[in-house]
């Protein structure tokens, strides 16, 4: 606490401006109080932040439609006692197509859940902002979702400091030879067959998938996009990366389960008498 007379106490130079601007992607919202929403956003300037949007659940609110998840917006915020309050919002890209299809909602939600779980508030990371923005943009224009999500996952791991080691064995540091390998979630990388006995939990992976993982990890989007990843390799990759994220978080993500139930629905709708297990 500062006392009057303290030389740091200066009325003329407020050390924090009352309002500030952010360019951000809306991650999620939660009903808050009577008609407000608590918005979680990922900003270009300050990373993840939470802010209150007042009265947006009222039909007359002019802000509500701009603050739906996945939208890219310019925000003017006022510092509140606790959380900042959104005073103005302007849409840059609404990405409304992402909210008009169940599969796209699930995939975009998965990206949002990854970003939300792996970042802490007010820690700026423009790479993460750019990755999420580009991925939303391409998904909204009809790019192949499975590929977009895998590319995002690998680039996201690079950006948040969990880049898996894919060229040398994480135990003996020998270069990986062209043969079937293992993956250690604990050590965050590939384990060669010689070192596998020392790591019983290492997970068997195919050489073909390893090649595609490396390709996605170190290529620009344009180069990576040229790869035609065989369906079986895609399944293996999705499973490996899913397990890696679960290991890093020490808990399950919510959206993969949701994605599975949406995929199962097509089978249900073809046979409506079938009971849901």
């Amino acid at each position, binding site marked *: 606490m500062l006392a009057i007379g303290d030389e740091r106490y200066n009325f003329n130079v407020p050390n924090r401006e009352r309002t500030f601007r952010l360019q951000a992607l809306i991650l*999620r*919202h939660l*009903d*808050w*109080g*009577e008609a*407000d929403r608590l918005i979680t956003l990922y900003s270009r300037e300050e990373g993840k932040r939470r802010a209150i949007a007042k009265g947006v659940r009222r*039909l*007359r*609110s*002019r802000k*509500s*439609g*701009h603050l*739906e*998840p*996945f939208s890219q917006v310019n925000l003017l915020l006022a510092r509140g006692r*606790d959380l900042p309050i959104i005073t103005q919002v302007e*849409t840059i890209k*609404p990405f*409304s197509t992402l*909210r*008009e*299809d*169940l599969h796209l*909602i*699930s995939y975009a*939600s*998965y990206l*949002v*859940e990854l970003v*939300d779980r792996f970042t802490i508030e007010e820690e700026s990371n423009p790479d993460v902002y750019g990755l999420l923005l580009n991925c939303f943009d391409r998904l909204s224009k009809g790019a192949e979702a499975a590929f977009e999500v895998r590319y995002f996952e690998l680039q996201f791991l690079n950006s948040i400091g969990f880049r898996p080691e894919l060229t040398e064995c994480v135990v003996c540091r020998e270069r990986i030879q062209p043969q079937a390998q293992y993956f250690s979630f604990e050590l965050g990388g590939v384990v060669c067959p010689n070192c596998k006995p020392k790591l019983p939990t290492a997970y068997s992976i195919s050489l073909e998938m390893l090649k595609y993982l490396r390709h996605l990890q170190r290529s620009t989007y344009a180069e990576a996009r040229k790869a035609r990843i065989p369906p079986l390799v895609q399944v293996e990759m999705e499973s490996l990366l899913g397990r890696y994220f679960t290991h890093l978080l020490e808990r399950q993500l*919510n*959206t993969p*389960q*949701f*994605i599975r*139930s*949406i995929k199962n*629905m097509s089978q*249900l*709708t*073809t046979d*409506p008498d079938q*009971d*849901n297990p």
Partner: protein
Amino acid sequence: MPTPKPIQDVINAFSRLPGIGPKTAGRLAFFLLSAPDELAQDLANSIIALKTEVVTCPVCFNIMGRGQTSCDICQDEHRDRSLICVVEDAMDVLALERVGAYQGLYHVLQGVLSPIEGISPQDLRIEELLKRLQENEVREVIIATNPSMEGDATAMYLQQRLQPLGLRITRLARGLPVGSDLEYADPTTLVRALSGRQEMGVS
């Protein structure tokens, strides 16, 4: 001095309510402490009664009094039984009933799909709705989930699940909110207002 346990317990309980942070919870707890005894007594009794006297209707999952076999709306013989309006929660039934323009039945989903919060179709009363539609003569289902990402996702999911049943499926119109200016409308609302536009007949 640490907060005495009975006060801390009340603060913790209030903090679990939506929209109430620890500061508000503290203010409420100390207010109750200094208020007349009846206030706390009435509050406690009404909360207990809420949980013991109000149960959910086994047909539509709206709220009903303990001891009833189904809710007042399901029992009302003047209601159109061929019309079912699907809503997120019982509060929405109250809101629609206040308007008084709807004369059909309801189906309360008891939530809304949310991939991030981990709320999947099996967490909602969707299977119960399908069963109801198969066992009863229903000509139209009106989907009245909120115009939010979660409400839209739920509506899309229901539409895909209900389509094979071959009945009419509609959704509440979502044009420009009453009282708003075109210039302030967000792009999504504007597009919806355009695509959902109605013919203006010459009368």
